[in-house]
C-alpha cells in the first residue's frame, strides 16, 4: 500500500518534468538534427543527405564565421574573467559591511536592463555622433567626429559588459568561502603574491571560475543583438547566419545544420572546459 502510494506520487511529480524535457527540449532538438540531414529535391519532396554539412565546409563564409565566433567568444570569456576577478576579490574579501552589499548590488545594476537596452547604451556612447566622440572633440583630442562603433573592439566591449554579472556572482560566492588562514599560511611559507594566487586562491575558486566561464561563454556564443548592432560589415556572428537561413531564406534544412554545428561547438567547448578543470556540470551548475 505504502509503496503504491509513493509510486503514484513519484509518477505525478515525474510527469510534468518529463513533459517539459521531452516536448520542449529533447524532441525539438532531435527533429532539428533530423531536418539537418534532409535535402530538398523539389518543393515537396525530401531526400536524406549530408549536403547541408558539405555546404558548411565548402563555403568558406560559413566556417570562417564559425571559427571567428568561437575564437572571439573564448577571448571574451577570458577577458571577462580577468576583469571580474579583482572586483569579485574586493567584494568578497576586502570590502566590509554596508559597502560590500552596495558594491554587489552595483554589479547587478546593468542587468536590470535587457541586452537590447545595454547595447543601445553603448551605441549612443560609441557612435560617430556619440558621446565619447563629442567629449574627445571638446577636450581637443580629436578634430573631427570619431567612429568607434561597428568594429570588433566595440563588439567585445559590449559582449564583456553583457557577461560580467554572470562572472562576478559565482566568483564572489566561491571566494567568500575561502579560509584566509590558507592565504596567510601561503605567505608565511614564503610565497609571493603570484605563488599564493596560483597555488591557493585559484584552485579554491575553480568551481566559481568554471561556472562563470561556462555561462559567459554560452551567452557570448549565442548572443545575437550585440554583434549585429555593434559589429561592422565584416564582423558576422554565427547566430546571424542561422537567423538568416530560417527567417530570411526559409532554408530550414541549412539553418538546422548550422544550428546543430553551433550546439556541437558549445557542447564540446563546455565539456573540454569541465575536463581540463576537473569539474562536473552538476557541481558547477546545480
Amino acid at each position, binding site marked *: 500500500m505504502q509503496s503504491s502510494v*509513493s509510486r503514484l506520487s*513519484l509518477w505525478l*511529480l*515525474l510527469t*510534468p*518534468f518529463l513533459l517539459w*524535457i521531452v516536448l*520542449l*527540449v*529533447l*524532441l*525539438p*532538438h532531435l*527533429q*532539428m538534427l533530423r*531536418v539537418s540531414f534532409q535535402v530538398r529535391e523539389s518543393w515537396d519532396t525530401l531526400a536524406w543527405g549530408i549536403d547541408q554539412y558539405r555546404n558548411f565546409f565548402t563555403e568558406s563564409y560559413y566556417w570562417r564565421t564559425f571559427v571567428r565566433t568561437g575564437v572571439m567568444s573564448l577571448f571574451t570569456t577570458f577577458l571577462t574573467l580577468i576583469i571580474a576577478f*579583482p572586483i569579485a576579490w574586493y567584494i568578497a*574579501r576586502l570590502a566590509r559591511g554596508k559597502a560590500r552589499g552596495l*558594491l554587489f548590488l*552595483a554589479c*547587478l*545594476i*546593468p542587468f*536590470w*536592463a*535587457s541586452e*537590447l*537596452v*545595454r547595447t*543601445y*547604451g553603448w*551605441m*549612443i*556612447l560609441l557612435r560617430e*555622433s556619440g558621446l565619447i566622440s563629442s567629449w574627445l572633440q571638446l577636450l581637443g583630442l580629436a578634430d573631427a567626429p570619431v567612429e568607434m562603433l561597428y568594429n570588433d573592439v566595440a563588439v567585445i566591449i559590449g559582449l564583456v*559588459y553583457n557577461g560580467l554579472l554572470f562572472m562576478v556572482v559565482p566568483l564572489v560566492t566561491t571566494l567568500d568561502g575561502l579560509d*584566509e588562514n590558507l*592565504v596567510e599560511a601561503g*605567505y608565511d611559507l614564503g610565497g609571493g603574491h603570484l605563488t*599564493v*594566487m596560483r597555488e591557493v586562491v585559484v584552485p579554491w575558486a575553480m568551481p566559481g571560475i568554471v561556472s562563470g566561464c*561556462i*555561462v559567459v561563454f*554560452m551567452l557570448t556564443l*549565442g548572443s*545575437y*543583438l550585440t554583434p549585429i548592432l555593434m559589429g561592422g560589415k565584416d564582423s558576422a556572428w554565427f*547566430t546571424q547566419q*542561422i*537567423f538568416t537561413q*530560417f*527567417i530570411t531564406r526559409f532554408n*530550414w534544412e541549412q*539553418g538546422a545544420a548550422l*544550428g546543430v554545428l*553551433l*550546439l556541437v561547438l558549445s557542447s564540446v567547448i563546455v565539456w573540454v572546459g569541465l575536463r581540463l578543470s576537473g569539474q562536473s556540470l*552538476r557541481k558547477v*551548475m*546545480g
Partner: protein
Amino acid sequence: MIRSVPRSRWFDALYLGYLVAFFLYLALPLAVTGAFAFNDAPYPSLPWKGFTLDWYLADGTGGRTGLFHDDGLLSALWVSVQIAFWVTLVSVALGCVNAVLFERLDFRGKEFLYLLMLLPLVIPGVILGVSILVFYSGMANDASRSWGIELDVFRPGMTLVVMGQVAFISTLSTLVIAARLRKFDRQLEEAALNLGATPLVAWFTVTLPWLLPSIAGAAAMAFLMSFENFNTTVMLTGSDTPLTVALFNRLREGSTPVLNAVALLLMVGSALLALIAMGRSDKD
C-alpha cells in the same frame, strides 16, 4: 591581498582606481540612455538642448509622438506582459514540482534526469528557439499539407514564444526553489504529520510557506527574464511582436529618443521588481 597582509599604498591606489573605472564602465551606458530620454532634440546625441517630457507625453501634433501615444510600442508592451505572465506561471509551477522531485524523492536514473534538467542552461537561446520552430511549426506545416488540418497554435506566435521561454526559464526557477527546499528542516514536516496532518495538509501549511520567498524570487526572475528575452523570442514570434523585438526593429530604422524613453521605463520597472524580490528574500 587579504586584510591582514600589508599592502603598499601604490597597490591600494591602483586597486581603488580600477574599482572606480569598473563601476563607471557599468553605469555609463545606462545613465546615458536614461538621460537622453529627456533631451529636447529629435536625435539622442549631444549637445544637450534642454529638458522635455515630450518623448513620453507628446501626442503627435508637434511632429513628435511620445511613448504613451505610440500604439505600436504600447501594444508590443502588452504582448510582452502577457507572455511574461504565462511563462512565470508555468515555469514557477514546474519549478516547485521539479524541486520536490529532485530534493525529496529517490528513484532510479535520478542523476541522469537531473543532468537533463540542467541541459537547457548549456543550449544557446537561439538554438532553443530554432529547434522549437522546426519541430512545432514543421508539424503544423505537415498537418496542413497531409491532412488539411490547421494547427495554428503551433505557427510562430505567442504560444510558441511562451513554449520557447518556458524551456529554459523552468531550469532556473527549479534551481532557485530547490536550493531553498534543501535547507528545509524535515522534522517540521514530520511534526505536522505526527500531530495528525495528512501529507497534503502538511505540505500546504508547513513546507509551502517555507518555500514562498524562493517562489516569489523565482517568479520575479522568470518575469524579468521572459520580458527581456530576445534570442529565443525572435525565432518564434509571429505578427504580434513583443517589446524587445519591436524595439529592435525600431532601432534598425534609426534611433529616436522614444527608444530611450522605453529603455528608461524598462530599467525602472525591472529595478523595482528586483528590489521588491530582494527585499522580500532578505527578511527571511
